């Protein structure tokens, strides 16, 4: 084969690659749009009036996740299944965001940490790499870290709204999360950078709890605990 022929073949491969990326980008854009819509729905909980109808908001958000599932299903068929990590960076960000949103919904509903399997179920993807489009563990952990900072904000706003018991529960939750993350040996990568922010969220919530307890405001909320 002559040199120019070789380069023509290679150029063909590169163009095909670019086409795939273009297709992926289109779907990811739609996913980002849906993610923004879900976020808007859930942001309502920070408003004073929002605390009453949390279940309704969660319900609405879960409906939006139906759209996410169809969009992710169409993303799956845009590229060969065994080349997930080749195009990973295109959907990495939006997937982390969706993990956060799913985790937020689950937290608001049950006040527990969503498991990795539960997230994959909500998003309609696979848990294991072998089975196809899956959720990378680092993306899951990143999403969970975003949840932590959102919850520290929620703790502040729930005090403003007069809900003095929620910060205590959030504090317990975040502390558990913190000790969980401390088990991990993180490399010096983006996940590690995000993790470094967790301590500020922990600190913020501890301050809120302190403010409440020094004023005796958590007495009625915590009940017999103290």
């Amino acid at each position, binding site marked *: *084969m*002559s*040199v*120019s022929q*070789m*380069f*023509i073949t*290679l*150029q063909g*491969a*590169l*163009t095909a*690659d*670019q086409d795939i990326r273009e297709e992926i980008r289109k779907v990811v854009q739609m996913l980002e749009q849906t993610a923004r819509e879900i976020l808007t729905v859930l942001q309502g909980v920070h408003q004073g009036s929002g605390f009453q109808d949390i279940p309704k908001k969660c319900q609405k958000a879960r409906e939006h996740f139906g759209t996410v599932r169809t969009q992710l299903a169409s993303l799956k068929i845009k590229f060969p299944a*065994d*080349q*997930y*990590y*080749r195009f*990973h960076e295109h959907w990495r960000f939006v997937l982390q965001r969706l993990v956060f949103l799913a985790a937020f919904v689950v937290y608001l509903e049950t006040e*527990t*940490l969503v*498991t*990795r399997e539960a997230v994959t179920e909500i998003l309609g993807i696979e848990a294991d*790499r072998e089975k196809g489009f899956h959720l990378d*563990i*680092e993306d899951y*952990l990143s999403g969970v870290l975003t949840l932590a900072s959102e919850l520290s904000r929620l703790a502040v706003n729930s005090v403003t709204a007069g809900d003095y018991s929620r910060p205590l529960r959030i504090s317990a939750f975040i*502390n*558990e*999360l913190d*000790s*969980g*993350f401390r*088990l*991990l*040996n*993180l*490399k010096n990568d983006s996940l590690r950078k995000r993790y470094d922010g967790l301590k500020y969220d922990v600190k913020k919530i501890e301050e809120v709890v302190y403010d409440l307890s020094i004023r005796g405001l958590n007495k009625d909320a915590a009940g017999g605990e*103290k």
Partner: protein
Amino acid sequence: MSGKEGTGGFRKRKHDNFPHGHRREEKDKLNSSSAVIMAFKSFQVELDTRHDKYERLVKLSRDITIESKRTIFLLHRITSAPNGEEILMESEAKLDTVRQKIKQVAQELMGEDMYQYHRAISPGLQEYVEAVSFQYFIKTRSLVSIEEINRQLVFTEEDKEEETKPSSDCNNKQDHTWNLKVTAVDYLLGVADLTGELMRMCINSVGNGDIDTPFELSQFLRHIYDGFSYIGNTGPYEVSKKLYTLKQSLAKVENACYTLKVRGSEIPKHMLADVFSTKTEIIDQEDGLS
């Protein structure tokens, strides 16, 4: 750990209704068995496994890079040595050891998504492409194709395969063959590096009074340059970056051929090297300035 035991002992000495002790107790319980902690323990295992694999691959990649570089240095000696065959044989042996390392990489990547660890092994593979294509060029005066390179990177475990053959089903057989595919981008970057080596080879051969090789090389480099120009910015950023260096290499070789043509007819052969070396020095200085 010792700190925790300390607080445990502290707690025992205190009265049970001391609120601080209560909270500690709760926290200890939480630390050992809650669902979240259990989940994170499994994450720890998963992440550690992944990082370990990555580190092993980086190490292999480094070894591949070093051995490939040595092969290239060895091949450069061919311009001055009379025993070309011997050097080619030696380089072949060296490349075989490199391929053994690549086999280990392929084994590590068995059942994994290659692109997940691509960044760990990419530098090594590029250097390998450079070495192989350089050797191939010296042997055949043409460019090795990516298919040819990948063909050499299919490994089988001969003795084990025979053992399993009686009970052969498709899965079993696959367990004993590994292959690693060099991606198009790795190949291109390796070839771009090759042009730098060819430029050096051109200069070296002039130094040895070889007048034909430079012209052959400039012809070949021009083909490669045309190829890269054809790809242009379709490829990733790294490829376009190499295009600039490639242009410089080509200019040096073309200037060398020019000098040979103009001055070659009038200067005695044994003095050619001197003329040429001063010429390249000037080019180097210009490059340094720009």
